[in-house]
């Protein structure tokens, strides 16, 4: 038994949350009256990676860090490259380098959002939270909605091919190097993408429609589901536009008031801190001026739509306005609205890809710049799941002596815990973990699209086990999938 628990408490354990990703565990603590008093989402994040980077030459780091994540290695690649740009004094990239990196990043956003929506989210939306889990999955979507499933596969493939063309290969790419890129986009590569572009835009537009219609038509159910008021944080451009690749930090409160704005990435550490809690491997970031209790915030698609003043592509901007109208122009705090926001970003990404593919700078040959060397650099991108911070210091031999990474899932640690608690309070009945409760806990976590894929994933390691423990630690109930 957890020695911190009073003897009168009952602890329910959902372990691991494999339907989200990798290794996680949910514990729900009840009091004597069988009411939820505490929930905790435990995510087994391996913190050793930052030490692993130490001692490595700075040139290696943008390639090496891709080992962190099987889902968004490109985000780590670009965040590390941006940090190293600062260190080699090459942060003012050439137009070709800047646009190649942006193309890579929008390809990553497009494929990742398509993967999440069609693979993980659409089963919940199309079949309902209470549908049989044997149907409520991507195979079920393929059987019932094959055209939609094919769209998901082909959108993901398109984004992956963009990554391959810009990074050199689909995984472990080398395209971004400190101070620039190592390749441009050939005419042949460009024309290949242009051939599929209209179809991708059409499908992305359709996905926004599905997410919007679902949210609006189920608003009564979705509005309270795992929802709570929160602050939001993301990068924004100098003029307040959404910018997924570069910009300055902005944080707003639940009503839209600015907590800080236009904070240069290099100064993030003056505004954000991380709290360690004994029960979790994952840290809890917070806004320093508000403290750990009030300073937590959300990142990712919902936060980005809320923080941005506008989106600089026409169709996504029209979709953003429609989205914001739902909350009368104030920040939207609905957890389930993440899905709609995510699809707006998917549409934005493909609009950006379209613009870039028509830009002749992508065929330029001026690829790398260098300047005055520094010993420290911070690189921040808006990864698919939210703000991703890479911070490095190097010594005179260009070897990394300090690395600090704050990944999107870590920023969303407290919000995911709160979402689980809200769902548990609303749906737990008695001391039994019903399939309905389990489904809803997963749906709430899945809205954030957490990614734990830095954990190993060898064959056969994907059981879902649910345990119910009494106050003595005795297992009362176990469920597995």
């Amino acid at each position, binding site marked *: 038994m957890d020695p911190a628990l009073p003897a009168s408490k009952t602890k329910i354990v959902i372990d691991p949350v494999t339907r989200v990703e990798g290794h996680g565990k949910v514990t729900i603590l009840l009091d004597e009256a069988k009411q939820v008093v505490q929930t905790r989402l435990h995510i087994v994040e391996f913190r050793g990676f930052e030490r692993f980077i130490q001692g490595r030459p700075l040139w290696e780091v943008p390639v090496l860090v891709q080992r962190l994540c099987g889902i968004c290695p490109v985000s780590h690649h670009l965040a590390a490259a941006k940090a190293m740009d600062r260190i080699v004094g090459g942060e003012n990239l050439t137009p070709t380098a800047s646009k190649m990196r942006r193309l890579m990043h929008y390809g990553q956003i497009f494929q990742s959002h398509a993967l999440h929506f069609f693979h993980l989210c659409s089963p919940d939306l199309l079949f309902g939270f209470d549908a049989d889990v044997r149907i409520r999955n991507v195979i*079920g979507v393929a059987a019932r909605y094959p055209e939609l499933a094919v769209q998901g*596969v082909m959108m993901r493939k398109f984004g992956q091919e963009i990554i391959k063309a810009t990074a050199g290969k689909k995984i472990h790419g080398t395209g971004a190097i400190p101070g620039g890129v190592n390749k441009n986009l050939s005419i042949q590569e460009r024309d290949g993408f242009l051939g599929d572009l209209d179809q991708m835009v059409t499908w992305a537009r359709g996905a926004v429609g599905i997410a919007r219609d679902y949210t609006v038509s189920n608003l009564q159910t979705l509005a309270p589901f795992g929802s709570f008021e929160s602050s939001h944080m993301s990068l924004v451009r100098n003029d307040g536009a959404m910018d997924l690749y570069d910009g300055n930090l902005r944080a707003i409160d639940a009503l839209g008031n600015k907590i800080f704005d236009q904070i240069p990435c290099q100064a993030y550490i003056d505004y954000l801190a991380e709290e360690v809690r004994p029960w979790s491997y994952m840290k809890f970031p917070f806004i320093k001026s508000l403290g750990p209790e009030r300073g937590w915030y959300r990142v990712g698609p919902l936060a980005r739509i809320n923080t941005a003043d506008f989106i600089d592509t026409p169709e996504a901007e029209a979709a953003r306005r429609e989205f914001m109208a739902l909350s009368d122009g104030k920040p939207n705090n609905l957890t389930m609205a993440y899905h709609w926001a995510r699809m707006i970003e998917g549409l934005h990404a493909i609009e950006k890809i379209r613009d870039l593919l028509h830009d002749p700078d992508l065929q330029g040959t001026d690829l790398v710049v260098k300047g005055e060397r520094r010993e420290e650099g911070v690189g921040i991108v808006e990864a698919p799941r939210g703000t991703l911070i890479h911070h490095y210091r190097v010594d005179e031999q260009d070897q990394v002596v300090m690395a600090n990474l704050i990944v999107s899932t870590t920023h969303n640690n407290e919000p995911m815990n709160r979402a689980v608690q809200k769902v548990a309070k609303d749906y737990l009945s008695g001391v039994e973990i019903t399939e309905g409760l389990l489904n809803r806990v997963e749906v709430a976590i899945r809205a954030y699209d957490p990614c734990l*894929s830095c954990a190993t994933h060898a064959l056969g390691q994907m059981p879902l086990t649910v345990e119910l423990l009494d106050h003595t630690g005795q297992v009362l109930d176990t469920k597995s999938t």
Partner: protein
Amino acid sequence: MNERRETVLLLGYGNPGRLDDGLGAALAAQVELLALPGVTVQADYQLCLEDAEAAARHDVVIFADATTSGADPFSFLRVDAASSLGFSTHALQPEAVLGLAQQLFGARTDGYTLGIRGYAFNEYEESLTDQARANLAAAVAFIRRVCEHGSFRELAANGSAPGVGDPPEQQSYLRPRGEVEP
């Protein structure tokens, strides 16, 4: 063997940054160097949606990954297409990739898992243990023998293929799905 050589997609997956979890990717890298005719090689961190589309364009798909337990040096098992799933993550399981290839693209691709036994997974380091390296070599030799002298479909039908002899451990590599490995 059929006159037309069967087309094979070898999908090696895992995280090379987590010691023996990199066995699948290492296998892909080594088989790619062999440039075996009719064999397409891909490496990735994990299986994903678009692998179904790639699988559908081949006669045979081999899913190569590390295993944390089971047979040394490797197991080679037939995989059936899934008609349903009990869970979902960003990563797909081989059965799901085959199921999607079948449902979405009308494919009749045969699937096999090549599970190479690994021993160390819980540190960040890009290297394989010595025993994992030995198992990898055995797996590469197996793939080479089948591709050069036989066919995976013949192996499935007959339990053996020309040129595919029992390895020193006298282990039969083809087992029905679900059968316990030695």
